């Protein structure tokens, strides 16, 4: 099939993120082929929030890399929400430039026109205000991950891709950052796709959860959440969680 990695520009306005990947195989250094993805196909509606959940090593990061255009060696189709909108990614590791300070790492990601923008507030909410002149090697892992989040949030992307953004953070900080993410995501029409192993987190944030099977990954099922975020209280969450856990065993 054709490699449609350049999306068709939507006629007036943003379109859904559409992903379809079939039979993605890696060639290992030992010469053996590793089948990572059998078939993954899903859509994320414009300006909505989707989550990918699947067992460790099933092909989630691979899917995100394909969406980010970092791996073009696949069969299938890919359609991005905007032809050339900004994309932000929080990788599974912080991926900071070790030779640049925290602030420089964030600023470098800004488009040239906004290079001088005021970032005080962003650093403040992320608890990085004191860390702006530090180098990544002087940060704890949790702090480094927050810098990676700061970088993603700073550029005000139209597509936001997050690979387990809230691990290595204590519950309080993680909760604060989830609220920040919701704010950033809702402030402008942003399409977001997140990978997580934390079903609670997924239920709190998403409009749609895509469950994947073991490697080679297939879509196991898609769970839609229509309850507005403001109405998702503790009781609602526990019900939803147990409903999902009943259908998709092992995710909680």
């Amino acid at each position, binding site marked *: 099939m054709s490699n449609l990695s350049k999306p068709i520009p939507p006629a007036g306005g943003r379109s859904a993120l559409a992903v379809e990947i079939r039979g993605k195989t890696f060639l290992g250094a030992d010469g053996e082929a590793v089948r990572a993805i059998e078939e993954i196909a899903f859509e994320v509606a414009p300006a909505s929030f989707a989550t990918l959940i699947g067992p460790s090593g099933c092909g989630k990061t691979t899917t995100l*890399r394909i969406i*980010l*255009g*970092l791996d073009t060696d696949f069969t299938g189709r890919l359609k991005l929400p905007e032809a050339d909108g*900004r*994309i*932000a*990614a929080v*990788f599974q*590791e912080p*991926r900071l*430039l*070790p*030779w*640049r300070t925290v602030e420089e790492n964030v600023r*470098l*990601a800004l*488009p*040239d026109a906004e290079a001088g923008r005021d970032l005080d507030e962003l650093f403040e909410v992320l608890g990085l205000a004191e860390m702006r002149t530090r*180098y*990544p*090697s*002087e940060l704890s892992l949790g702090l480094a991950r927050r810098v990676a989040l700061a*970088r993603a949030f700073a*550029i005000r992307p139209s597509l936001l891709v997050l690979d387990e953004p809230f691990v290595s953070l204590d519950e309080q900080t993680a909760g604060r950052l989830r609220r920040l993410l919701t704010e950033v995501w809702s402030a402008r029409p942003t399409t977001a796709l997140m990978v997580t192993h934390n079903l609670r987190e997924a239920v709190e944030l998403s409009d749609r959860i895509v469950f994947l099977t073991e490697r080679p990954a297939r879509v196991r099922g898609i769970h839609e959440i229509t309850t507005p975020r403001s109405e998702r209280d503790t009781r609602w969450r526990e019900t939803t969680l147990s409903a999902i856990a009943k259908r998709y065993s092992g995710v909680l």
Partner: protein
Amino acid sequence: MPRGAWQLLGPRLVAVVSLAGLLAIWWVAASLAHSRVLPTPPEVFDAFWRDALTGELFFHLAMTLMRVAGAFVIAMAVGSAIGILLGMNAEANRFFDPWLILFLNIPALVLIVLAYIWFGLNEAAAIGAIAVNKIPNVVVTMREGARTLDRDLEEMARVYRFSGLKTLRHVVLPQLQPYFAAASRSGISLIWKIALVVELLGRSNGVGFQINLYFQLFDVAAILAYTLAFVAVMLTIEFLLVQPFEAHSTRWRPKRARG
């Protein structure tokens, strides 16, 4: 503990102690050898003073430094560019690798003579010949560096749409810094050695010219005087420019744990 003792001395002082040690070893060895071919420090200093007084030494030193500097800039710029390209592009590398090995192994003499013959006995030919001798070495080192570039950071730069220049400056070059340091340190010494040959074969001034003159007279003291004058310049550059610059550009590196 010796560690403590070292740390008490400032880095400058350590360098002075180090050089004094070297001088002492030389002096003792020369006194013991008592040979015309291993002159003592005062003899070398006399030779230095003789040519320094007439200004001759500084003239020749300046000429050589000029050639070394010119060739260094050209060789590092061209060599780094080619090296990075070959390191990042496996196909180009596969094609040009044999060329590289050829140019690496062409003797300096051959390149220099050909340059002089084709471009005349002039400064441009001399500096060009030195640079061409050095370029393959820079290419080889920078190519190794470019091969080890971090793929993760490159991908990050792509996702965040870093321009080519931004990627080069903030992502690629900092990773190549150690390779660049290695290429330029051993590079400047190689260039100076080739400059000596270039001056020997077809220039009428420069340290190489003088060393050869004194070699014909077998005046080892004068040869060492010129050599050490050049080394002194290099040491000065090392301490006043290179080391502060390096300390600055590697300040982000985690300090090695002690103990």
